[in-house]
């Protein structure tokens, strides 16, 4: 028996492997595995953990309502560790080893760009929940956050309506702010606005006195802020202590949501505008249920924000597509997804068949003294996603794609 046992187990392993690599994962069991891949450690954990929590809530709710196709969803949670190669590696693991039906994950554009070739190679599905710089539409990614024409351009429309003609651009030094500012400059040129300055600081930068001095000297009507992470805290504290207020120097931000306001200090940022598609205060029946459920699960002091809501929606949209397709098989789900329309906390969202982004309503909000954000302007109806800005004459030459 000395020899046959290893051979037996080897054969068993092979048999299991053969079983597992079958086209229909988990078809035999009454469970469907889905992957959640966010940074649970490192510098991005601050933001991504909340998105994972929102996705887990959606999975819970769907399971309580009977699951999908009569099967329970089982989340497989992995940590991207704020490290882009790790995202690619963990995505491969979720697809190849765990054989998940789909993956919800990512936050930074760098993590998405790292995962994209993995999902395209294995023909697996990724749902990406954060607003980003556009100029991308992978056939294996669904984008549930805003693209530029659903956040940045409405933000500029708002500033234009408010009569702000001279802008100063402040951003962190990486792909999103630089791409966003290219779009802003093209918009300004076409709309008679003037860009007085454009400044970038490294991620994690905390010394803003020189930059604040430059902004104050330039005397713009408004600042367009694409800073990311902790830098926002230093920037707003130092801007405030230089004597600027929301009235004298409005700063429109696209990366500050309810979560970030506490860390910056409400005193330093109250009255400043932000651009998103969703706020905790957004007045829809679905949002009331979402906020109540989230607080019940994670604590009454927790807040909900745009990326969290986009992650929460992603799970529901995928589940809807699976129901429509009658299977979790990727190509069938992709085929079923276009046109799916759901009433979500942010209002009605619809999956666009052409670029797999969502129709979303743009909302401008103002930060309140209690730390929540009150909507002051919205686009009225969901805006068709246009990641390459084909529908904007002034943007020709920008959207060259990849």
């Amino acid at each position, binding site marked *: 028996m000395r020899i046959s046992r290893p051979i037996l187990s080897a054969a068993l392993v092979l048999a299991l492997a053969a079983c597992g690599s079958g086209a229909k994962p988990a078809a035999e069991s009454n469970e469907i595995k889905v992957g959640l891949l966010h940074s649970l450690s490192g510098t991005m954990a601050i933001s991504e953990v909340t998105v994972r929590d929102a996705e887990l809530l959606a999975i819970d709710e769907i399971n309580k309502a009977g699951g999908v196709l009569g099967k329970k969803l089982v989340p497989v949670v992995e940590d991207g560790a704020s490290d882009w190669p790790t995202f690619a590696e963990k995505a491969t693991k979720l697809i190849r080893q765990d054989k998940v039906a789909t993956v919800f994950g990512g936050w930074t554009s760098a993590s998405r760009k790292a995962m994209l070739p993995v999902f395209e190679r294995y023909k697996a599905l990724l749902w990406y929940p954060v607003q980003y710089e556009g100029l991308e539409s992978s056939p294996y990614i669904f984008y549930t956050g805003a693209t530029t024409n659903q956040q940045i351009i409405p933000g500029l429309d708002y500033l234009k309506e408010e009569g702000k003609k001279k802008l100063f651009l402040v951003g962190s030094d990486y792909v999103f702010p630089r791409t966003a500012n290219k779009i802003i400059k093209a918009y300004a040129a076409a709309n008679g606005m003037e860009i007085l300055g454009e400044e970038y600081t490294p991620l*994690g930068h905390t010394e803003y006195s020189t*930059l604040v001095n430059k902004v104050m000297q330039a005397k713009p009507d408004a600042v367009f802020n694409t800073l990311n992470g*902790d830098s926002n805290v230093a920037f707003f*504290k130092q801007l405030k202590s230089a004597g600027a207020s929301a009235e004298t120097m409005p700063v429109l931000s696209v990366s500050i949501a309810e979560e970030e306001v506490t860390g910056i200090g409400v005193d330093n940022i109250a009255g400043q505008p932000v651009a998103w598609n969703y706020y905790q205060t957004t007045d829809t029946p679905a949002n009331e249920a979402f906020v109540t459920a989230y607080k019940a699960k994670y604590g009454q002091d927790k807040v909900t924000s745009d990326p969290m809501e986009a992650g929460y929606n992603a799970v529901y949209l995928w589940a809807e597509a699976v129901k429509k397709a009658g299977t979790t098989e990727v190509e069938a789900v992709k085929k079923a997804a276009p046109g799916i329309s759901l009433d979500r906390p942010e209002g009605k969202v619809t999956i666009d068949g052409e670029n797999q982004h969502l129709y979303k309503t743009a909302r401008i909000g103002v930060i309140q003294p209690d730390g929540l954000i009150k909507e002051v302007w919205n686009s009225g109806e969901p805006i068709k996603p246009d990641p390459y800005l084909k529908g904007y004459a002034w943007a020709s030459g920008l959207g060259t794609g990849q």
Partner: protein
Amino acid sequence: MSAFVNQLPIGLSIGAVLLLIALGLTFTFGQMGVINMAHGEFIMAGAYTAFLLQNFVLALPAAFLVAGVMGLILERAAIRHFYGRPLDTLLLTWGVSLVLQQLARDLFGAPNVQVPAPSWLSGGVGILPYNRLFIMALAIAGVVAVWLYLNRTGLGRRTQAVVQNRRLAATSGIDTGRVDMLTFFIGSGLAGVAGVALTLIGPVGPTLGTYYIVDAFLVVVAGGLGQLRGAVLAAIGLGLLNSYAEFWSDASLAKVIVFAVLIAFLQIRPQGLFALRSRVLT
């Protein structure tokens, strides 16, 4: 033009921040030669002390004690066993710094927290807000206190004696272990005080220390080890260089310029470079 003039006080205030974060390092790194990568986390501990107390003024002495005791524990429990092994100390304290960051994340959560600034620090004169002036005053007070301690107190003189010649100091009856302990306590405590001051201008989160640690080492290395005067001049010089480099270019390029100038400077005057003048404590 006025923007150009404005950069002078801004440069000085950046220098004051640099000096404040480096002051503690002039003790632990400068006097004892210990490369303490967890120095940034003592700054963080100071900032969180201010958050817990929600009282800025009270936090200054409290943070000195909290960070000082943390430093004391680190020195007694670990670093003490690694004297004379700078590379091992570097790895050890780097590990400690990661542990402390994760600890802060578990205790206080990953998002940044807010420390209310005292109302008498809002407002300012000219380009400089009161909170910047306060940091400058605190840095000056810190330098004076350190100078007085080293030159006018018995403990301070004993510290200097140990630094200059450990064996001779020991044979003269100085308890070198106790001096090491005290030096580490003061150095770490000063980091805590810096942490409280930084809540006025920057984020308060688990990774706070990582934003300042490199700058702190730059100041001490550029100034020359164990040289209080050197640290003061280096901090002011680096602050002004930073301020004008960023004014004429941008923040990313300013960092490059500062490093390039520093490397060139250390080529000409390598006395500050620790590799050439490591004080191996035996």
